[in-house]
């Protein structure tokens, strides 16, 4: 399917999504409560088999926290990018997609470790790389302050 057909497909499933044009992949910004349903539909429907989540990353824009999902299909070789936003910086949460793509299990733990974004219904929501006793807080946020850092 090319980008036009994918765009129509996504808009029929989730009409409130915002599509951004002129990027390398077709980029869709979904509301956070529709994410899980859209992801499930994209994975399991016969004409868009998005069975490979090849990148899951967190982003900290100054006032919003975002999670970006890059999906591709090993059957049709088309790609799509899903983004979810939240302005809640104290307790940000999204739904997990680790029941749809198993690789999201570790990737979401990494996003929690560095940004503090929790994922609902995740099987094992805890830090994966950093050590809680030496590093408190979430280093990749823009407002992270470390007393021991040597600035340059």
């Amino acid at each position, binding site marked *: 399917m090319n980008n036009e057909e994918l765009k129509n497909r996504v808009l029929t499933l989730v009409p409130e999504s915002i599509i951004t044009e002129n990027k390398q992949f077709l980029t869709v910004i979904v509301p956070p409560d529709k994410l899980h349903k859209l992801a499930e539909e994209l994975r399991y429907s016969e004409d868009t088999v998005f069975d490979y989540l090849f990148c899951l990353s967190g982003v900290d824009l100054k006032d919003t926290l975002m999670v970006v999902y890059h999906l591709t299909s090993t059957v049709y070789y088309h790609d799509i990018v899903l983004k979810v936003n939240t302005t809640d910086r104290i307790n940000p949460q999204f739904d997990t997609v680790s029941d749809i793509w198993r690789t999201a299990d570790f990737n979401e733990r990494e996003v929690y470790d560095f940004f503090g974004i929790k994922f609902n219904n995740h099987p094992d929501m805890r830090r994966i790389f*950093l050590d809680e006793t*030496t*590093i408190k807080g979430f*280093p990749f946020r823009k407002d992270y302050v*470390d007393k021991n*850092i*040597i*600035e*340059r």
Partner: protein
Amino acid sequence: MKYEDFKDNETLKLFEQSGGNILLTTVDAVINWGRSNSVWPLTFATSCCGIEMMATGASRHDFARFGIEVYRASPRQADVIVIAGTIVRKMAPVLKRLYDQMSEPKYIVAMGACAVSGGPFYYNSYSVVRGVDEILPVDVYIPGCPPRPEALLYGIMQLQRKIQKESFVNRKKIQK
């Protein structure tokens, strides 16, 4: 390296004046010669300097010629720990525990810029320990990123000369 540099004893004189032992009997000399020519390191390599250490142990620059015959996997059986690689704050207690488990006499060689002073991660890093001498007493520092195998061999030779100047019976060690 030049033969004159290797035989240069001024730094050794400084070391002796600063408190290393001077009185060496013949027995001490023989024992120290034996000890310095058979230091066995612990397997410890964290990052890129570990690859250079493996290259030094391979056949082109072979450090089994210098007495580093075999790597011991258990810290109880090792003499020296060559800290090759970046030490992050999660790794630091583990390294301290390994060092505590080694039995005396033990030595430390800090290899590479990250182990000497934090290296390229000195500024703006939230998780790197700025140099292994924040947690452990180091005997020999080898700068470089990564140091060439010849530089690592030079560092090992310096460690050997340092061991030969010690008195086996009355060994002073700086405790940290």
